[in-house]
């Protein structure tokens, strides 16, 4: 899980081209959007694409609530692990 969290932080930085930000600057539990890292809706979309490509997961179309998975790095890691264990 911790390894996945670190990997996700790096993926966020490189896939979203975040300047000046290092993995240590990203709090795994802080909101990615709005107040925390300050990502926007375009970032959400691009991050969704990058994660599906890298981890071969599918965002679940049976629930419209993908927002919860994208709340924080930790939630993303939980989502990916859950997908891989099924």
């Amino acid at each position, binding site marked *: 899980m911790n390894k996945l969290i670190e990997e996700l932080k790096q993926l966020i930085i490189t896939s979203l081209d975040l300047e*000046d930000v290092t993995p240590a*600057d990203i709090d795994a539990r802080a909101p990615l959007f*709005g107040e925390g890292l*300050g*990502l*926007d809706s375009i970032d959400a*979309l*691009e991050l969704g694409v990058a994660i599906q490509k890298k981890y071969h997961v599918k965002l679940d179309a049976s*629930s*419209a609530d993908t927002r919860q998975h994208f709340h924080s790095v930790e939630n993303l890691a939980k989502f990916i692990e859950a997908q891989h264990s099924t």
Partner: protein
Amino acid sequence: MHSRHLSRSTVARPVALGNHTVLEQTAFWQRVHGLRRALAAQPARRMALVCDDSSWFAAGLLALAHAGRVCVVPQAPQAGSIIASGAHIDAVLTDRPVDFAEFATLSVTGIPPASDSTPSLPDDGALIESYTSGSSGMPKCVPKTFGQLRREVATLEQQWGGQLGDALVCGTVPHYHLYGTLVRVMWPLLAGRSFVTLTCLQAADLRHWAAEQRCVIVSSPAFLSRIADLSELPPAAQIAAVFSSGAPLPDHCAERLQRDWGHAPIEIYGSTETGGIAWRAWSGAAERPYWQLLPGMQAELREESAGPRLWVKSGFTWQSDWMPTGDLARWHTDGRLVLLGRADDVVKLEDKRVSLSEMRTRLLAHAWVENARLLLVEGRRRSIGAVVVLNATGRAHLHAQGKIPTSRELRHWLRRSYEPVLLPRKWRFPETLPDNDMGKIEQSRLQQLFASRA
């Protein structure tokens, strides 16, 4: 659709679908009448409508119009944006569980629904104020009457109603921009189609809704051009139409959607002030430059120093008179239009107009900022770059805290007034602005600051 009472056939389908919720016609109109009664008892004459749920947004808009109150729709749903817009408002009508400290706040969810569930539309004269980026440096208020919105919806229905049938309307664009207000909310409401209450941020959200029924997708190039794998979208057979507006869809993107997915988006060209002007859909590269005017839209070209500027007039343009667009154009021989580019210096970012001079003015109002310049920076994602000269207080903070907390503070400051997608993504903090020997700040030298990472 033209009478104040909706026809019986439109009362069959639910008004809106949410995540695990269905809002039936009866409950919706009971909300409208409940809100209308509560608003009529309020002294507030002008109210900002700040709702995240599109069905509350719709109910709030209708209730304000019914109660003879001016419905002010802020450019971005943040309290700071309401203040910065310079709009005089008396109160905020919201579905958020928070108080807008600066204003009297009326919570829509705290108001009991009425027993009356008669569908009825407000008077055509009711005022709805939208905001858009002006070129003068301040957000520009665009007042429209309910009648203008209704007439634009009637035009859309005349053009595409048959194609849409009873499809569910899903939007990837927010409902607080006039395009979203009209196409995502008012059009389905007045035509008796159901709409989805949340903005679909991922292609998976669209698959979810399209799994059960045919859908209409109300989108923009910012979304459509970023779908890397077209199988993330719902099957084309489940889609009645895709609308794209805000900016031209790149040619390769329109072609790819048609060829590899099976559905060419209908692109609508227009602006907040003019409403929809013309449309096109992919039908081969040779046809690409030509835009067909919407029914009832008149257009003419007036020569200026920059070239022939497009002017338009229709039943739903602001002030119902000839008005200029921001674009240069020419006529094709068959009466279609060819657009030749912007006539002014407001830039488009992620399909949204933004005035860099206006954003600079906001930035200069921060206590740390001595001077600033903003410019478009190309890159993996085109964004705004900020070159900021800090004053003594700002420099002390930069040295003590570092670059990230400093740029985060300034981003946070701008977030009060702008949507997140418009905020500068790259920041430079030089001691002085790079000027040439004539004392003029050259754009190319500002650009150089972003050529490599600072």
